[in-house]
């Protein structure tokens, strides 16, 4: 069966509900079939990390429900088969996909310089937030921090599939363009553990907050970004150095520590101190230490690369095989399987071997309910009411429109969760806005 046929079965109920394989759901997220017939899920705009993690994990459950339905449809058609859906980063042929992060930043004249200043951080953060993977080469196999690192070809660019930049500079803020700019980061791995997501997005957010407040960061501009991201990815010892433009040679551990130290120094100042900020900084510190001291147990229930490393090491010892053995590649895939039964990540959580960050009920709720403190709340309420009314409608990140209606509601402020125009629209649909 081709991937396109499988995608057709997967999206059967989506198409029946939304009359399209490219829809916004009642939780205000977007779900569609991307090039190559794989499902893509984009969370709604979130202004807290817990909302974001809940929404991201809810997306896994949403596509998992599609897998279950798709399998039932196969059985009904007399086809004996299972559908495996992986939230991972590369396939066996060396194709790469991964995970995009979008941060809304204030518009500024020097966006390219602003974005470039983040590159040394993004290139080295993989030692804490990488998905971890077995890399196979003609010389043999080794464990790397990030499966995505080898697929990056440029620092900044407005193209994505052609050149694979680390930051996509396409100017598409999905918000008031006079005020906002989109920082579209493509260099992150798709990861499974909630703690990894907390650190990945949390630390990046803290860095952006410092940069927007004009806090002076150490100048760690790299001499060769593409070389650096590969050198860091393939050195689990954390001792490989990368060259800086000023001629210094530093390790990724040193670079991450330098950024962490600046962030720490601004807590209570630029950064408001919260339990969540403390959690991020503690995990960031331990992640760096784990590499520096080569004591992976410091983070092997929280950070994807360390969780997988432990799993693979243990299974390899049991099989007494080389790291390139296909059974270990199979294990790696199983870790990223979104199925709660087959997926190894989910079974590790169930066994208490991986820690979680958000409550299960919050994830379950996020499957159908939008984040309530951003524009997402308005979109979610509209989609729910319009779908329930049976009327045709169109919706995207900034527009809400009933087909045939003269007016389109334009929502340019992503931070605004209440809007009288939307209330009116909902009333016309016979919906209680808070419903």
């Amino acid at each position, binding site marked *: 069966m081709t*991937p396109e046929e499988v995608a057709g079965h997967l999206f059967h109920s989506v198409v029946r509900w939304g009359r399209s394989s490219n829809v916004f759901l009642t939780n205000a997220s977007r779900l569609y079939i*991307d*090039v*190559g*017939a*794989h499902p*893509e899920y984009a969370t709604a705009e979130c202004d807290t990390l817990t909302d974001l993690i809940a929404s991201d994990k809810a997306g896994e459950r949403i596509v998992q429900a599609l897998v279950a339905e798709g399998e039932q449809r196969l059985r009904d058609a007399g086809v004996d088969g299972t559908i*495996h859906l*992986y939230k991972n980063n590369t*396939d*066996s*042929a060396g*194709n*790469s*996909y*991964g995970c*995009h992060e979008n941060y809304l930043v204030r518009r500024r004249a020097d966006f390219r310089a602003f974005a470039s200043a983040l590159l040394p951080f993004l290139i080295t953060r993989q030692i804490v937030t990488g998905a971890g993977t077995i890399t196979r080469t003609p010389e043999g196999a080794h464990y790397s921090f990030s499966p995505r690192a080898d697929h990056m070809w440029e620092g900044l660019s407005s193209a*994505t*599939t052609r050149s*694979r930049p680390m930051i996509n500079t396409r100017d598409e803020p999905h918000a008031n363009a006079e005020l906002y700019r989109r920082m579209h980061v*493509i260099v992150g791995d798709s990861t499974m553990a909630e703690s990894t997501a907390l650190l990945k997005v949390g630390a990046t957010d803290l860095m952006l907050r410092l940069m927007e407040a004009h*806090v*002076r960061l*150490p100048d760690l501009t790299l001499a060769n970004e593409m070389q650096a991201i590969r050198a860091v990815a393939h050195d689990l010892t954390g001792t490989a150095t990368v060259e800086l433009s000023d001629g210094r040679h530093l390790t990724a551990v040193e670079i991450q520590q*330098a950024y962490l*130290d*600046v962030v*720490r*120094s601004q*807590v209570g100042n630029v950064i408001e*101190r919260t*339990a969540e900020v*403390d*959690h991020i*900084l*503690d995990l960031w*510190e331990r992640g760096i230490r784990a590499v520096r001291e080569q004591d992976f*147990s410091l983070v092997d*229930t929280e950070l994807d690369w360390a969780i997988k490393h*432990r*799993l693979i090491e*243990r*299974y390899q010892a*049991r099989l007494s095989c080389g790291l390139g053995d*296909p*059974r270990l*590649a*199979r*294990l790696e*895939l*199983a870790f990223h399987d979104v199925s709660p039964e*087959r997926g*190894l990540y989910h*079974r*590790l959580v169930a*066994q*208490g*071997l991986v*820690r979680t960050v958000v409550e299960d009920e919050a994830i379950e709720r996020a499957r159908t309910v939008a984040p309530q403190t951003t524009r997402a709340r308005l979109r979610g309420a509209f989609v729910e009411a319009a779908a329930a009314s049976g009327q045709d409608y169109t919706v995207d990140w900034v527009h809400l429109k009933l087909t045939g209606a003269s007016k389109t509601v334009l929502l340019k402020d992503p931070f605004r969760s209440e809007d009288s125009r939307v209330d009116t629209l909902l009333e016309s649909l016979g919906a209680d806005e808070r419903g």
Partner: protein
Amino acid sequence: MGQTFTSGQPYEDDAPEPAPAPAKAESTDALDSLLDEIDDSLQTNAEQFVRSFVQKGGQ
């Protein structure tokens, strides 16, 4: 800013206590029994399974 490399870590004391992880031996046992459970399914046609996982497109 001269504060680039702070030596003290004033916030360390207040960092949230990590939830107690299972004792190492206990956790290794749990990991081993999990690997026991999935061993058969992982071993079955592993090479062909992995090779057939190809995903075109995307970014």
